[in-house]
């Protein structure tokens, strides 16, 4: 079926506002990952889900960041009280299982700009 999709593709917001980023993984993929990529930088791991559970949330940069996944499918990354340093591309990936042996399929990303 279709690949990983993310919405919106671009989001411009004002400092202090909350934003929600959405990820639709490939159907049947039990694992879902969120990464952040600042301009010209590598990928920073944020959080992963196995099913609806997030076993390790320590990659989230601050308590303003949260994520949830429902029905073993769609995931939402929420950033509260956005700051300018939150500006980045947020990438979502899914794989069959949460294992390094399974290929991660990435979405196109959401470019977040905080003014």
């Amino acid at each position, binding site marked *: 079926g279709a690949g990983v999709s993310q919405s919106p593709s671009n989001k411009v917001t004002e400092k202090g506002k909350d934003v929600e980023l959405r990820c639709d993984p490939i159907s049947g993929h039990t694992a879902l990952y969120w*990464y952040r990529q600042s301009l010209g930088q590598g990928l920073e*791991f944020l959080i*992963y889900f*196995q099913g609806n559970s997030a076993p*390790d949330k320590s990659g989230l940069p601050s308590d303003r960041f949260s994520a949830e996944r429902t029905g073993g499918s769609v995931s939402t990354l929420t950033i509260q009280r956005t700051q300018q340093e939150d500006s980045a591309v947020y*990438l979502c*990936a899914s794989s069959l299982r949460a294992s*390094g042996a399974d290929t991660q399929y*990435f979405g196109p990303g959401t470019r977040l700009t905080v003014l």
Partner: protein
Amino acid sequence: LAKTTQPISMDSYEGQEVNITCSHNNIATNDYITWYQQFPSQGPRFIIQGYKTKVTNEVASLFIPADRKSSTLSLPRVSLSDTAVYYCLVGDDPTDKLIFGTGTRLQVFP
């Protein structure tokens, strides 16, 4: 916790073979080694994966020595379209966060 080290950048010319090495001294027994390619404004995409020795597919080869503390991605006869950032990913247990390295920015010149 496996961590990877790659050269920051490499330059090459069309038609040449390019070898990018990734160091992963703390690789664990169950860890796989996976390489991804990323073009600007796109998410990374899978290139090749291996566990030991040599793996070859239609786009690349992956060489892994016996101690598995490093791996080398080999791109035969690169073209301009191979200009991208290449990431080495090592891990198996997701609690290792499947950390991507800093990536190697490959620039191919005509």
